[in-house]
């Protein structure tokens, strides 16, 4: 019965997203549509990063690196898979969808694996080492992609055809993935594992004394967070016909940190708001490009001094609406 309800729910959500897509594609200009897509990608990035930076209390400042890994591997796998899958299923929307989603999953897989590689040495130690290692990782990945000739070096990877990567990314796929990742990370955060992660954030030594496998949980949370960045990278790559190493500079990681800090470290709805905020404010500040990072930097410092927990803190929006303020994520009330 529960399974049936879930299938029905998923189908409804997908139908709603499809309906919205039809509406958005007819109702908005191409420019606005692009901002909406970017906002969706940002939400995936922010919710993913929030799992490690907010919920677990570790600090990654190189998530652009994982996004880059995801973008490049999704683009590469997508190009290489297109021919065999089109041969098997024939050309058409179904085959495209299969190729695209397999490519995104490949992006998530490779980003997740690099998350494991980066996380394992650094997460055994205190959180601030992770900051430095991820910062270094973000730079190294960019250097590697800059020098990888089979991925187009500094000019970027545009696939094998002269028209660039196929632009699979549209409203439906972005928001289907947004929904999937938000639900997944929400369920994880409010599960028993999620409460262990919160315990690590609040007091790592106490959590360890309570027999929480801190290192293992931190590494798992980090890998999931990296995989989410990988999906976002894959969506981003297929939105603009190619991936360039320059798209994943340190500024990108800073954008992500601004997203989760504005909304509130540890709050999923805060991360969603932050993702949308950054997408919109980047567009509004387009003419002020050179002042953008100065303003972001000041915003970070002022928020840290005045309201270090961010707009929502660890609270969720729907908790506020219900006028309940649980201090920590609560267990689901219904029993299974």
């Amino acid at each position, binding site marked *: 019965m529960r399974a049936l309800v879930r299938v029905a729910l998923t189908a409804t959500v997908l139908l709603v997203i499809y309906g919205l897509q039809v509406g958005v594609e007819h109702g908005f200009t191409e420019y606005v549509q692009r901002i909406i897509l970017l906002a969706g990608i940002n939400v995936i990035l922010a919710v993913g990063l929030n799992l490690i930076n907010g919920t677990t*209390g570790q*600090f990654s*400042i190189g998530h652009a690196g994982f996004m880059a890994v995801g973008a490049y591997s999704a683009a590469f796998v997508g190009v290489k898979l297109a021919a065999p899958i089109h041969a098997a299923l024939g050309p058409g929307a179904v085959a495209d969808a299969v190729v695209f989603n397999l490519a995104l999953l490949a992006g998530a897989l490779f980003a997740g694996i690099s998350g494991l590689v980066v996380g394992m*040495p*650094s997460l*055994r*130690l*205190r*959180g*601030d*080492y992770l*900051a*430095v*290692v991820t*910062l*270094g*990782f973000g*730079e*190294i990945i960019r*250097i*590697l992609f800059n*020098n990888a000739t089979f991925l187009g070096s500094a000019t970027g990877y545009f696939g094998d055809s002269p028209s660039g990567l196929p632009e699979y990314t549209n409203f439906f796929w972005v928001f289907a993935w947004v929904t999937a990742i938000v639900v997944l990370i929400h369920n994880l955060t409010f599960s028993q594992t999620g409460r262990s992660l919160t315990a690590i954030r609040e007091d790592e*030594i*106490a959590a360890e004394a309570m027999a929480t496998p801190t290192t293992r949980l931190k590494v798992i949370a980090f890998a999931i967070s990296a995989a989410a960045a990988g999906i976002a990278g894959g969506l981003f790559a297929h939105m603009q016909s190619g991936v360039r190493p320059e798209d994943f500079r*340190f500024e990108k990681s*800073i954008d992500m*940190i601004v997203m989760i*800090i504005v909304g509130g*470290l540890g709050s999923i709805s805060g991360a969603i708001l932050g993702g949308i905020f950054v997408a919109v404010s980047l567009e509004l500040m387009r003419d002020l490009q*050179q*002042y953008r*990072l*100065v303003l*972001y*930097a*000041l*915003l*970070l*410092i002022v928020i*840290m*001094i005045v309201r*270090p927990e961010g707009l929502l803190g660890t609270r969720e929006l729907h908790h506020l609406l219900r006028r309940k303020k649980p201090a920590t994520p609560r267990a689901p009330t219904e029993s299974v």
Partner: protein
Amino acid sequence: MTQFLQQIINGLSLGSIYALIALGYTMVYGILKLINFAHGEVFMVGAYTGFYAAGALGVAGFEARNQGFPLYLALLVLIIAMAAAAVLGMTIEFLAYRPVRSAPRLTPLITAIGVSLFLQNAGMLLFSPNPQRYPAILSEVRFELFGVIVTNIKLTIFGVALCLMLGLHLFVQKTWTGRAMRALSFNIDAAKLMGIDTNRVIRSTFAIGSGLAAAGGILFGLDQITINPLMGVLTGLKAFVAAVLGGIGSIPGAVLGGLLIGLAEQLTAGYLSPAYRDAITFVILILILLLKPEGLLGIVRVEKV
């Protein structure tokens, strides 16, 4: 063999610059347990202050005659830059770090990233994002030693760095403030109870660390010829890795780590590929975190509740 010796010479002079910057990281981390991400930007501001000070003191006139600055003017440039950076360091500490000092660890870390980002971008607005050619404060003299080309610039870099490090060592070991710094890094609460004005000591730690970074900035400008507002990012990171390699919180460790990172970088550039000279630092970081996270000269401290 001569090529090897050449790389060693270059590595030692580059490494002594890293060592100077690493000292600032390690001193602040030792006391506040904070990775001062803005330290790389203080290094950058130091280099630019030297650049403008040299310009104001008429370096162009000397350069036209193919001469460097006379010693007293060169020292003046160094002192101006160190003083300016010291003021900047104290200002950052007062405005950004002090309000969040008692907050959970992540808050000061994010603040530090914010300050670093702010200085980078303010630097790009103020100094223009284009690289600037560093004035020839010293005119280069080359000479050969056992087939290895040595320049007076490399020797000066090594010498100045060595003098400053010795000075720091004497300061930390012999003066009252130095002893107070060691007390703070041992236990800040106990130090406060013993009547040490912790704010004052932390302020002087920032001042000294920033001054050393500024000296590193000028030496870096002499060595690498060009400077730009983002120079602090990668150099700062490498210096931080040097501090971790030597054992963060340990002053001799920072010097050792800096020299080792400089050597590793030059040898990689010389024997593997210049493309990987920046990557080797992070390989070292990951190895040291895996094998000996307390660093080469660090002390293992058990974290207590």
